[in-house]
């Protein structure tokens, strides 16, 4: 991959944490307002893709920390897991179940299976987008790939 501009590299360093934070915000907001796992996952993958373009494949893989395919697996497990609690109570799969925690002075915190499902979607989206982007980027860098001219 060609050497990228200093501006882009510096910006990527700053933007990655900010965008990841923003994606977490979108994920949590999606529970009762526009937002949600899919859009949050796309924001996070866009951040990682930007990182990849400016700093190269190796550092993007390092920033991701895990094999993106594992992320897909983990996300799917979580999403399926969110369908199961209802079954234990005798409801249809995917029926929403909430756990209310009222330990906080600001009011009760309600954690529900829809949030769990969103989290699963979030991970699946990051995993699949990064799998595709990394596959394409690595194919681009392979020495045996045909050059664009003269074929």
């Amino acid at each position: 991959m060609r050497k990228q501009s200093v501006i882009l590299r510096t910006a990527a360093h700053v933007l990655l944490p900010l965008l990841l934070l923003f994606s977490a915000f979108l994920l949590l907001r999606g529970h009762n307002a526009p937002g949600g796992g899919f859009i949050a996952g796309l924001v996070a993958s866009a951040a990682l893709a930007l990182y990849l373009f400016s700093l190269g494949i190796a550092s993007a893989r390092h920033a991701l920390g895990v094999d993106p395919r594992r992320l897909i697996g983990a996300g799917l497990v979580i999403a399926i897991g969110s369908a199961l609690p209802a079954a234990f109570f005798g409801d249809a799969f995917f029926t929403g179940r909430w756990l209310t925690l009222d330990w906080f002075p600001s009011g009760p915190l309600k954690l529900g299976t829809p949030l769990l499902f969103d989290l699963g979607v979030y991970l699946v989206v990051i995993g699949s987008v990064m799998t595709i982007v990394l596959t394409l980027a690595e194919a681009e860098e392979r020495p045996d790939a045909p050059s664009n001219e003269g074929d």
Partner: protein
Amino acid sequence: MRPEIALPILIPLAAGALSLLAWRSHAAQRTLGLVGTGLLLAASLWLAASTWQDGILVMHMGGWPAPFGIVLVSDLLGAIMVVLAGITGFATAVYSLVAVGREHERFGYYPLLHLLLAGVNGAFLTGDVFNLYVWFEVMLVASFALLILGGERAQMEGAIKYVTLNLLSSALFLSAIGLLYGMAGTLNMADLAVRLAETGSNGLTTVIAVLFLVAFGIKAAAFPLFFWLPASYHTPLVAVSALFAGLLTKVGVYALFRFFTLIFTHDVAFTHEVLLWIAAATMLTGVLGAAAQFEFRRILSFHIVSQIGYMIMGLALYTPLAIVGGVFYIVHHIIVKANLFLISGVVYRLRGSYELARLGGLYRSSPGLALLFLIPALSLAGMPPLSGFFAKFILVRAGLEAGAYTVVGVALVVGLLTLYSMIKIWNEVFWKAMPENDGEPNDDVMNDDRPAQPAGGLALLYLPVIGLAALTLGIGLGAQPFLELAERAAAQLLDPTGYIHAVLGDAAGIRP
């Protein structure tokens, strides 16, 4: 709450997710492949048994009542299809233990296999038109990736044709959904049946019906848009071919059965007449295409096309007996076709080629395999007492009763030509002497099936072949219970009130 309705979807999804997590361990992926598909088979049998006993089962996902939420519905046809998916999936998983090498597992063979099965079962069980689209796409994405595992040139070229036509079909499907929603204001299949029956026949309904017909016709590889199938099915791994041959086109056929018995019955004289001509043309072009081929898997691919014609013929005649024949034909076909592809893989493993000209002498060296080939081959051609005989017999009789003599004539001629094709394979592969050549195994088509493990693995390859052949024999010799099953499934299809009532409950009656 009946958990068994959702299990055939959840089990493969979970197995796929776990095998993604166990990315690096081949042993874990293989175990998950075997256990996952085995559990799927068990769950599908459970579902079929419950559906047989208690009638149509419904699950309202997330507790949202129909027609507002998504429902999973298991009537007998859906349950039968799920069982067949379980059988094919399990047989393929056993076969894959030997036939799929590490290099393919590394590209995600097992997760994709599970994802494909989840998509197929979801399509069989859903009671919502848009949800059906989603499952179709899940299945398609998995099949795209499975098709190019290995990355040979022929695979890429086949995949481009496959992807293009299937995406075209998806876009048509989606457009038809849009128009249907605009017209009826609902996408729940049972609700649609009620509303369209109220509005009666009009031009727009027929246009939408034909759009669905074209979309599902492409997926089912019906005439005239079947080209993607013979262009791609002979290129992937044998295990993948067998799975595709058994299941993918049949999802399209299933969707046709569902839509044209439940939803679009307002203008049977037109839509089912079109279906009848499509059926005849599909049978004929498929079998003629096969007659011109001299490559094992290509012959079989063209025969899938011609067999699809028989199933559509059952639907098109639209008499109780014909629907029975169609359902029975699907059961027979999935088992036989998957088995024939698996056998072609065994032959390749033994001789290193799919070209008939380079094969020969297998009757002398492996008579057992020759016998195992004869069972599904003759069943495909419709020889008594095998399963295919009863399937064809019912269809022909239904055709005669309905006075559709042309299509019956076509069906009989096509049966004869199928026999010719099968005898051609038998003569070339098993009976004639091994041709003289330089003795080096050629790899003109694929080199995926080089023995990953020497010798010992062959028994595992034979195991699913024997199992499926035994099923074919069983369905043929003990046809009565299977016929009864098909009869009850057909009765449910022809009288949709049971389906509608099961899904909508009492809401069906109080519609404004």
